[in-house]
C-alpha cells in the first residue's frame, strides 16, 4: 500500500514521537510493528470488513507474524542465559568476594605509585570476566576503592574516571551480555564473538592502566603513596611471596586438570577418535605435561620459596581464589567445550552460590532479593526484545532492510565513510538510549549494509576475512557502547557512582573526570576501525 521508502520514514518519525511521549521502548516497537503491517497490507487484508459485521478475518492473516516473532524469542535457548547472568551478578554483589579480592590485590601493589587506581582497573577486569553486567560493578568499586583513593589524596578526577571506566568493562570482556544480544540478533556465533572480544577488551583495559601509570608518573602528587605499613613485606620479598602464591595457584589448577584428565581416561571419554576434536588438556597425552607442571610448582614451593613463605603468600593472595574459580567455571565451561553459553551461566550461578555458602554469606533473603532484581531486569530487557523482534519481523516482511541497504550502498559513499557515519550514529544514540534498544532496533538494519561493503575497503591495515566481518562489527559495536556508559548527559556509570560517592562530588565533577577516559575509549575504538584484523587474533 505505502511504498517502503515512505514507510521507513514514517516509522522513524513515529518512533521518535512515541519515545518522546515516554512510551516504553519495547511496546513502542511492538505497536510500530502493527503499524508497519497495516501500512504494508492495508486494513482490509488484516481485519476484513469488520464494520459490516464480517469477522471472517479474525484469528489469521499477516498479523500472525507478530505472534510467531514473539514465540521465536520465547523459545530461544540462548536468551535464557540473560536472566541467569543477571542472577549470577546479583548474587555476586551480595557476597564479600569483591572486598577480599580488593584486599588481596592491594597488597601486591601498595608501594606502586597509582597502585590503588591500577588495582581498581585489574579488579574491574576480573569482575568483568566473571559476569557480563555493569552497574553493580561501578557501585561496588565506588564503595570499595573510592573512599581509599580520596583518603590517600588521589586526584578526584583520576579516581572517578578509573572507577567508572573500568567498571564499564563488564560488557566488553567476555562473557558480555551486549555480545550475547548482538549474536542473537545477527545470528553470529556468540562463542566466536567472545573469543574475538578478548584482545580488544584487554587492550582497552591496558590502555586505562597505562594511562594511570603515565599520568601518576608525570604528576606524582595526583596519587600520593600511602605511608609504609611496618607489617608490610619488602618489595623484593613481596615479589617472592607473589611467585609463591602463583605456584600455589598452578598446583591447584594442574591438580584439577589432572584429575579431570584421569577421570576422562578412566571413563574412556577421551579415547582418540577420528573426527572428534580432542578434549582440551584432557587427553592421555596431556597427562605427563600436567603432572610435570604440578611437580615443578611443588618443587619450587618446597625448595625455592620455602613452606613458610608460601603459606604467607597464600594467605595474602587467597582473596583471588574465589574469583578465579568463578571465571574458571564460566569461561572454562564455554571454552572447555563442556557447555554452551546458557549452561555456563547456570553453572556460574551454582558456583557463586556454593562459594557464598562456604563463606557463610548466603541466606534465603539474599537469594530472594537477587531473584527479585533478576526478574525486574529480565522483564525490562526481554520485553524490549519482544517488541523489537516483532518490529524486525514486520519490517523485514515489508522489505525494509533490503531497501535501506540498497539505498546506502547505492549512495556511492566510501566504505569507511559509511562505517564512520554508523559509529557516529551509535555514539549519539548511546547518549540517550540503552544499548539493548540500539542493538535490537538498529543492528538488523546496519549489519546487512556492512556485510555488503567490499571487504578490502574495511580498515586500513591488514585484511579482514570475509567470515569475520559480522564478528568484527559486533566487537566494534560493543566498544562503542563502552563510550555510552560514560557519555553525558545520561551515562549510567555516572549515576551509579553518584549514588555511592560523598555528597560533595557533583554529577558535573563526575562527568569531568570521565573526559580523558572517554578519549581512551575512542582511541581503542579507532584501533578497531583502523586495524580490524585485531579481532581475528584468537579466532
Amino acid at each position, binding site marked *: 500500500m505505502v511504498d517502503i521508502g515512505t514507510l521507513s520514514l514514517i516509522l522513524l518519525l513515529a518512533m521518535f514521537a512515541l519515545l518522546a511521549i515516554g512510551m516504553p521502548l519495547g511496546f513502542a516497537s511492538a505497536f510500530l510493528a502493527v503499524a508497519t503491517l497495516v501500512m504494508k497490507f492495508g486494513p482490509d487484508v488484516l481485519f476484513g470488513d469488520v464494520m459490516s459485521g464480517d469477522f471472517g478475518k479474525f484469528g489469521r492473516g499477516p498479523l500472525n507474524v507478530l505472534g510467531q516473532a514473539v514465540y521465536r524469542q520465547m523459545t530461544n535457548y540462548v536468551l535464557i542465559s540473560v536472566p541467569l547472568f543477571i542472577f549470577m551478578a546479583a548474587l555476586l554483589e*551480595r557476597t564479600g568476594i569483591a572486598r577480599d579480592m580488593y584486599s588481596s590485590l592491594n597488597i601486591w601493589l601498595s608501594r606502586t605509585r597509582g597502585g590503588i587506581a591500577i588495582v581498581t582497573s585489574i579488579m574491574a577486569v576480573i569482575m568483568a570476566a566473571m559476569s557480563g553486567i555493569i552497574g553493580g560493578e561501578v*557501585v561496588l568499586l565506588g564503595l570499595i576503592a573510592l573512599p581509599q583513593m580520596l583518603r590517600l589524596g588521589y586526584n578526584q578526577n583520576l579516581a572517578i574516571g578509573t572507577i567508572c571506566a573500568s567498571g564499564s568493562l563488564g560488557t566488553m570482556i567476555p562473557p558480555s551480555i551486549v555480545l550475547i544480544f548482538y549474536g542473537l540478533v545477527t545470528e553470529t556465533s556468540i562463542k566466536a564473538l567472545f573469543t574475538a572480544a578478548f584482545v580488544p577488551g584487554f587492550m582497552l583495559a591496558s590502555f586505562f592502566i597505562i594511562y594511570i601509570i603515565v599520568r601518576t608518573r608525570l604528576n606524582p602528587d595526583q596519587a600520593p603513596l600511602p605511608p609504609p605499613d611496618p607489617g608490610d613485606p619488602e618489595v623484593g620479598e613481596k615479589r617472592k611471596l607473589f611467585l609463591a602464591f602463583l605456584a600455589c595457584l598452578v598446583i591447584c589448577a594442574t591438580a584439577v586438570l589432572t584429575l579431570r584428565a584421569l577421570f576422562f581416561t578412566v571413563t574412556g571419554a577421551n579415547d582418540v577418535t577420528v573426527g572428534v576434536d580432542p578434549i582440551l588438556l584432557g587427553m592421555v597425552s596431556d597427562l605427563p605435561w600436567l603432572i610435570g607442571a604440578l611437580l615443578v610448582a611443588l618443587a619450587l614451593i618446597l625448595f625455592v620459596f620455602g613452606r613458610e613463605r608460601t603459606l604467607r603468600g597464600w594467605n595474602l593472595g587467597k582473596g583471588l581464589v574465589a574469583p578465579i574459580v568463578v571465571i574458571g567455571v564460566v569461561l572454562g565451561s564455554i571454552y572447555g567445550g563442556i557447555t554452551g553459553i546458557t549452561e555456563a551461566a547456570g553453572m556460574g550461578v551454582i558456583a557463586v552460590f556454593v562459594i557464598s555458602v562456604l563463606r557463610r554469606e548466603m541466606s534465603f533473603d539474599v537469594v530472594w532479593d537477587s531473584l527479585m532484581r533478576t526478574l525486574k531486569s529480565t522483564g525490562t530487557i526481554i520485553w524490549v526484545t519482544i517488541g523489537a523482534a516483532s518490529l524486525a519481523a514486520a519490517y523485514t516482511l515489508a522489505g525494509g532492510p533490503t531497501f535501506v541497504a540498497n539505498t546506502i550502498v547505492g549512495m556511492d559513499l566510501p566504505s569507511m565513510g559509511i562505517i564512520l557515519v554508523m559509529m557516529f550514529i551509535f555514539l549519539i544514540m548511546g547518549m540517550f538510549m540503552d544499548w539493548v534498544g540500539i542493538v535490537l532496533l538498529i543492528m538488523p538494519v546496519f549489519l546487512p549494509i556492512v556485510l555488503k561493503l567490499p571487504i578490502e575497503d574495511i580498515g586500513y591495515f591488514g585484511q579482514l576475512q570475509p567470515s569475520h566481518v559480522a564478528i568484527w562489527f559486533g566487537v566494534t559495536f560493543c566498544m562503542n557502547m563502552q563510550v555510552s556508559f560514560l557519555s553525558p548527559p545520561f551515562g549510567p556509570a555516572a549515576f551509579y557512582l553518584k549514588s555511592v560517592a560523598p555528597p560533595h562530588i557533583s554529577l558535573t565533577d563526575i562527568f569531568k573526570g570521565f573526559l580523558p577516559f572517554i578519549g581512551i575509549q575512542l582511541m581503542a575504538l579507532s584501533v578497531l576501525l583502523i586495524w580490524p584484523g585485531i579481532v581475528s587474533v584468537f579466532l
Partner: protein
Amino acid sequence: MDEQSVWLGSLRRPARLMMLFTIAVTFLTAGWLIVGQLFLGSNVGMHQMLRPGGLPVVQLMLWSLLAALLSTSIYLSDTVGAIEDEPQGFFDILSLVTSRLAMMGVVFVVLVMFYEVVARYIFNKPTLWANELSLWIAAFVFLFAGQYAMQQRSHIRIYIIYDLMPRWAQKMSDCVSVFLIWVFAFALVWGGWNEARDKILRMETFGTAWDPPIPATIKAAILFIICLVAVQALSNLIADWHKAPEHHSPADDIDEDEIRKLRETLGEDGNG
C-alpha cells in the same frame, strides 16, 4: 514471621500452612518416585510426567506440584521486597503472584541445567528432557517478567521530553501509550488466535524425544499474558492518575536499599 501482610490479612497463616503442606506432599511424592526409579526398578520417569494417563502416582505428583507452586507464590506475594512498590489493586496482586512463580522458575532453570551438566559430564548419561524443560520454564519466566516489569513500572522509557511536559500533557501521553499497547495486544490476539487455538486443541508438541507441548502452551500463553500486560498498563494508568508530576533520571534505577545492603556486606569501614 511477624511481617506485615500485604493482601492476605488473616488468611496469611492458612496460606502458609497450605504452602508447607503442598510442598511436603510434592517432596514426598517426588522422593517416592526417585526411590522407585533408583532402587525398585519402576520406570516412571520424566517421560511419564507428560503422559500421566492411568498412573495415579504421576497424577498426584503433577497436581501436588501445581498446588505447591501456586500456594508458594501466593504466600510469597504477601510480602513485598524493599525494591518493590506496594500493590494497589487486584491486578497488581495478580502480577505479584505470577512474578513469584517466575522467580521460582529461574531457580528451577538453574537446577535443571545443573542436573543436566552433572548427568552428562560426570555420569555420561545425558537426559532427554533437561533442555526442553528449561526452555519451557524460561518462556513462562520471560512472559511473567514482562508483566512484573509493567507492574513495577520498570520498562525502558526515555524521559527527556516527558519530564519537560506539564502534568496534563504527561497524562495525555500516558493515555496514548496505554491505548497503543492495547492496539498491539489486540493485533497480536487477532492475528494469532486461530494458530494458538489449533495448537492447544491438538496439544501440539515440540517434536523431540521428551516431546513437551511447548508450542501448544506457549502460543496460548503469549496471547493470554500480553492481555494481562495490557490490563496491567491500564491499571497503572488509573493508579497513577492523581500522582504529582514525577521527574526521572537514570539515578532512579539505583535503589538506596541495594546500596545499604552492599555496604553491610562490605563491612562498616567499607574498605576491606
